């Protein structure tokens, strides 16, 4: 019998065997949302009516014998960074309060076409800038493992929704780790596909050259199933890759890593990492060896500069991407008293509509792009980016996939780092290089840290458009871990009083 604790694959199987209906499944999740989201605050908007209508439509199609896709009827939580026609879309910012997009993002179109039921929009750091959801203009999301802790960010809403069984599937966006870091901190699975693997059309841009949409779920297979729904070339996104989607579902079913070379990145496995994180990480390496993989150590000396370069490139692009929020055409407008000029209203609106971290990055980026500073800042950062890519290229000569812990620490307390932006930025030290190089990266849970009992994430990285490799390794490791534990990691998540 399927319930909210089932995997998406199990739910899909039950639907196809007519053991349940999409309406029933959707109602179960809407119930869970109303029971627990008051505590978790994963959702910014729940589209009860729309979700039930979509579910009924899928059920009708199934009843009429129409061919439908594998995930049809399974509910999903959508990060509020993607446009969905007619549904409030804010990217976690006050400046977009009340805006209802007149168009669907490509990912939403694909989800709708596949019959995946969209429950609502999930919370995030404003414009995806942050690692904790504390930068959301609409309040912080709590980590279901410990409500006094952050769920990671920027996609903390999507990850927390999965970990508290409010949805079996979610969509995230990952610019420097916004899918993988929350996955790691909530014991869920999150994948950042190869840059260009999933269309960005309709994704409210933070840093266009780094942003990538990806699937989130509670198992590697579920993530793969969702990956194949949303991936593929889109003629509306010039940077989307025109090539066949890697066969990630087949890879996630392989459960075999014999003869594969796993490269451990020396620079991301030691100093600055919590002991319990390293311990779980090393245990996972042993499990991979036990399954026939070979471990090699690789060095990526330029990763040292990646974080600094990221904090020049991303804010530079953001300063330009966010210029359009000027109160003229949509969203918030403040101070338009009929006397003030356009420029003044723009200025007052931006002052009121943007949060502190967003302003910090706009100023940083504006400065980095200024004439006279461009070469030293933006220009140098691009050079580092090339070096990081070269490090990865060399490492992939020696290994099929690369691995590291996802984050230096487990989930920290709400408020702990909110006054120290640099400490916060360090949360993404292991995830950022992947975005800089445009390769694929996955986070899957590899256990609970001994010191705090909180989830630890294991990161697997694969070369451009070889996303299947990380799914293959991830699924094998997941199977070995679950068999060792005797139950999935989320069986340990506290009951939030939903029953």
């Amino acid at each position: 019998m399927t319930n909210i604790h089932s995997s998406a694959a199990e739910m899909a199987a039950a639907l196809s065997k007519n053991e349940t209906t999409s309406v029933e499944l959707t109602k179960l999740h809407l119930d869970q949302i109303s029971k627990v989201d008051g505590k978790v605050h994963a959702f910014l908007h729940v589209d009860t009516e729309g979700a039930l209508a979509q579910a009924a439509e899928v059920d009708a199609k199934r009843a009429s014998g129409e061919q439908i896709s594998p995930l049809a009827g399974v509910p999903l939580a959508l990060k509020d960074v993607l446009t969905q026609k007619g549904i409030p879309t804010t990217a976690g910012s006050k400046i977009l309060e009340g805006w209802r997009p007149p168009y669907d993002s490509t990912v939403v179109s694909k989800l709708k076409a596949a019959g995946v039921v969209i429950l609502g929009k999930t919370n995030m750091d404003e414009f995806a800038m942050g690692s904790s959801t504390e930068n959301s203009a609409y309040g912080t999301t709590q980590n279901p493992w410990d409500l006094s802790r952050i769920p990671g960010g920027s996609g903390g809403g999507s990850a927390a929704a999965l970990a508290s069984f409010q949805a079996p599937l979610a969509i995230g966006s990952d610019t420097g780790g916004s899918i993988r870091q929350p996955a790691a901190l909530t014991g869920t699975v999150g994948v950042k596909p190869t840059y260009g693997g999933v269309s960005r059309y309709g994704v409210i841009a933070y840093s266009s050259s780094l942003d990538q949409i990806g699937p989130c779920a509670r198992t590697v297979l579920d993530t793969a199933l969702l990956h194949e729904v949303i991936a593929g070339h889109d003629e509306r996104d010039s940077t989307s890759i025109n090539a066949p989607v890697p066969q990630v579902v087949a890879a996630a079913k392989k459960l075999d890593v014999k003869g594969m070379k796993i490269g451990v990145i020396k620079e991301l496995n030691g100093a600055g990492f919590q002991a319990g994180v390293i311990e779980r990480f090393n245990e996972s390496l042993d499990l991979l060896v036990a399954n026939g993989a070979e471990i090699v150590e690789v060095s990526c000396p330029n990763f040292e500069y990646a974080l600094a370069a990221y904090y020049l490139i991303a804010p530079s692009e953001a300063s330009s991407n966010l210029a359009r929020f000027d109160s003229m055409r949509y969203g918030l407008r403040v101070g338009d008293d009929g006397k003030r000029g356009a420029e003044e209203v723009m200025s007052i609106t931006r002052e009121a509509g943007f949060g502190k971290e967003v302003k910090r990055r706009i100023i940083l980026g504006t400065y980095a792009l200024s004439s006279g500073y461009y070469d030293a800042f933006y220009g140098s950062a691009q050079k580092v980016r090339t070096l990081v890519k070269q490090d990865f290229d060399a490492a992939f000569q020696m290994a099929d996939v690369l691995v590291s812990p996802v984050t230096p620490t487990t989930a920290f307390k709400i408020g702990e780092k909110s006054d120290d932006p640099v400490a916060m930025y360090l949360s993404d030290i292991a995830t950022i290089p992947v975005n800089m190089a445009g390769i694929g990266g996955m986070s899957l849970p590899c256990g609970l840290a001994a010191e705090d009992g909180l989830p630890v994430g294991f990161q697997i990285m694969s070369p451009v458009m070889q996303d299947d490799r990380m799914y293959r390794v991830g699924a094998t490791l997941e199977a070995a871990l679950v068999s060792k534990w005797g139950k999935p990691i989320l069986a340990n998540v506290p009951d939030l009083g939903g029953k």
Partner: protein
Amino acid sequence: MTLDYAAAVEKYEPTLGLEVHVELNTKSKMFCSCATEFGAQPNTQTCPVCLGLPGALPVVNAKAIESTILIGLALNCSIAPYSRFARKNYFYPDMPKNFQTSQYDEPICVNGYLDVEIETDEGQKTFRVDIERVHMEEDTGKSLHVGGSTGRIHGAEYSLLDYNRAGIPLVEIVTRIVPGTGKYAPQVARAYVTELRDILRSLGVSDVKMEQGSLRCDANVSLAPVGSGKLGTRSETKNVNSLRSVERAVSGEIERQANRLENGERIIQETRHFLEESGATRPGRSKEQAEDYRYFPEPDLVPVTPDAKWIEELRTRIPEKPSLRRKRLQAEWNCPDKEMESLVNAELLDVVEETIKLGAEPTRARTWWLGEISRLANEKEVAPTSLVNAVQVAEVISLIVSGELTDKLARQVVEGVIAGEGSPAQVIEKRGLKVVSDDSALMSAIEAAIAAQPDTAERVRGGNIPAAGALIGAVMKATGGAADAAKVRELLLKHLGQG
């Protein structure tokens, strides 16, 4: 003391620089599929992309790239195998994204030239204008500032915005500085823009209508004392909406700057607006504090990398340079200068050439198009080519030459064709406009004329051939012009013993 133009150029050496913006005539916009038709209802030709809505992404219009390469090739430029778009960041209400997507330091066409010929005191002289770059960009929307005295945004009560123009493909053609024109600077500027306009028209890539703004020229002018070898501070004159204005704007600016220098004032580097009525310029935005546009490569667009084979294929499509073609045709047709000028001004060169290619004799072809057809077109206030085509005119001319139509009848045939009565042959048939060539019918008319004027007939019999004119006139009158005058003359003289 004030200097007039002649005195100004005696003392100061002008240096020119010209920037021409051309709206391409592609069916869709630069980065989206919206229509580009001129004069549509405001904001009816917009979409998420050209409105800069959150999440929307640009995709380059391939036709615009093709048109730009054609322009580059026609201007003897090299075509870059790799070029990129950049973002030019600044705030303005008619800029949907608050940045303009434009090529910057990596344009698609570079290092070309255009030779222009002008009339000098020493006869025809050629000036070479070096082209620095030809690049692609998008147009902005249009603002209409209502209320206030200046028509500018400051002081306006409110502003209306039309985004139909936002995203229309623009090509900017930038010359290097053009030194050494001396007093001919205004004529060189005009000749350059004229030649450029003709080239763009011959390529079919733009409507090149200066009055509608599909071709706009900014003229940079600076002065330095003659023989100093220096470059003065330049001003940039915008809003130059006709070829004549280009010439007037340059000479006006030369005079203004010379007088400032003469009075010991310095030239301010600034944008000036051309005033059509007075021919003077008024100051616009000062560029003393150069605006920092914070250019950086557009991360939403992949680089433009045209295939070398494609470029060579496009090269074969470059038509003969219009000025050379004019010279060639003028010689081939043995056409007087004045008439050639009229043909060019009336945009009849193509159709006359076509008419001649269809077998019409050049003088007749020119006369028909410039004469009767232009007269009718003027009456109806339409273009001559919208009334009849080359095939119809060539047919009429061939009927005149073969004697089947007189000029008078031919005019009636053309009228019929314009009235939609069919081809010339059909009109002749329907209206019964055949030349009367039946000798017996003519003979009775001739006999009647002789009977009516016996004295005249007697004079002709006596050898006074010119006297026959009165009799021929009478016959022509009697036949309503349907007779061939030469034939009448032949028969008449024969009848009176003078054949």
